[in-house]
């Protein structure tokens, strides 16, 4: 288990929306994909969605699978609608310059370490 705050620090993330209770909430699983249907297949709880897709549908998908937050990779910036929606759904929204691979590798080692 790791936290959104730890991940944010590890990947030097920009924190667009970060809810205080979520910041320390435990992330147990990761769904990493640019195709939202693949995220929707996940059945785990306490997820972080890692993706390069910066549309509102990313936030809606994360909301549907009860994820705690979304991490945008490859230096993608969230569209304004995403930030609004993340706020409404109470989801953390981070972005990093790191690639999908680097991000996943870093989060994986954080998850293993703890």
């Amino acid at each position, binding site marked *: 288990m790791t936290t959104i705050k730890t991940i944010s620090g590890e990947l030097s993330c920009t924190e667009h929306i970060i809810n205080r209770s979520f910041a320390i909430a435990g992330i147990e699983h990761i769904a990493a994909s640019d195709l939202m249907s693949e995220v929707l*297949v996940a059945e785990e709880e306490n997820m972080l969605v890692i993706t390069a897709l910066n*549309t509102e549908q990313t936030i*809606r998908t994360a909301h*549907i699978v009860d994820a705690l937050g979304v991490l945008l990779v490859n230096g993608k910036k969230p569209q304004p609608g995403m930030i609004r929606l993340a706020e409404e759904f109470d989801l953390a929204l981070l972005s990093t310059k790191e690639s999908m691979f680097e991000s996943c590798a870093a989060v994986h080692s954080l998850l293993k370490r703890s």
Partner: protein
Amino acid sequence: MIKKLIPVYENQTPLVVLELIQGHKISEIMSTNVISVTPDITMRDVKKMMKDGGISGMPVVRQRRLIGIISVEDLLNALEDGLMDDSVEKHMSRNPVILEEQMPVSFAIDYFENYSYNRFPVLNENKELVGMLTGRDIIMHMVKVMNREIGRLEEIARYGHHTEIGNVIRRYAVVQNDFKNAGKASSEVKTLLQEHKVDRKVIRAVATAIYELEINQVVHSLGGEIVCRISDHYVEVLARDRGPGIEDIEKALSEGFSTATDWIRSMGFGAGMGLPNVKRVSDDFQIQSSTAGTEIKVTINLPVDNSAEKI
């Protein structure tokens, strides 16, 4: 911003109306039996054709490519100047404003608002002339779909009074290619179920099913609707669209099969998981499809001991 005379994009435009004007393509409503002329015929020939056909304007075409428009006005000018033996090419208006067949009807309405022309040539993606569009075509289309839509709304309104089927009915219009609003139905139903303390896993199943069905209609259909009935014991989701239908249902239900384009993939969908996902989360799944449309009915049971508190 200048206020438009035709009020199609007001903030409060009902979804059904948006669906009527955005959910249909120009190719569905244009006239395709177009009388066109070649640039070398004379204005005298044009006069005869217009008079005989009762037309007030014709496209001028060279090897299927549109090169101009000739109108009654051009004809009158030629007549006045005694130039009736000139070729059409000398009198036609060049570089006409055109529409493309894949554009939504809302574009055409905008064009009639922005330009004073009475007709627009319609081109396909190869820039060939495939039809003409007049205000009359739009009126005919609007009346047709209005009849159908209002009829359907009336049916739903009647349905809504019968409480034995469900205690709550929600209806959402889904517009073709409208990724912006896709997901609103699932978010709203999710919130509703959360308020009634339905089991989280069940809510997730319902939200996933509705979401995939919404995306499916946005991506693959000409538009449609999602109707949700929530009772004490189950949630029923009915997704019906106006076509073009699923060619091979068995394939559509197998994981990884997709007919999505690169554009759809760039929007994060088209993994070929949509319908399989819906089927996976539902207790009952029924599908019918023809070229007139696809209807999918999904039921998700609410746990008996933990069913929705008085919805």
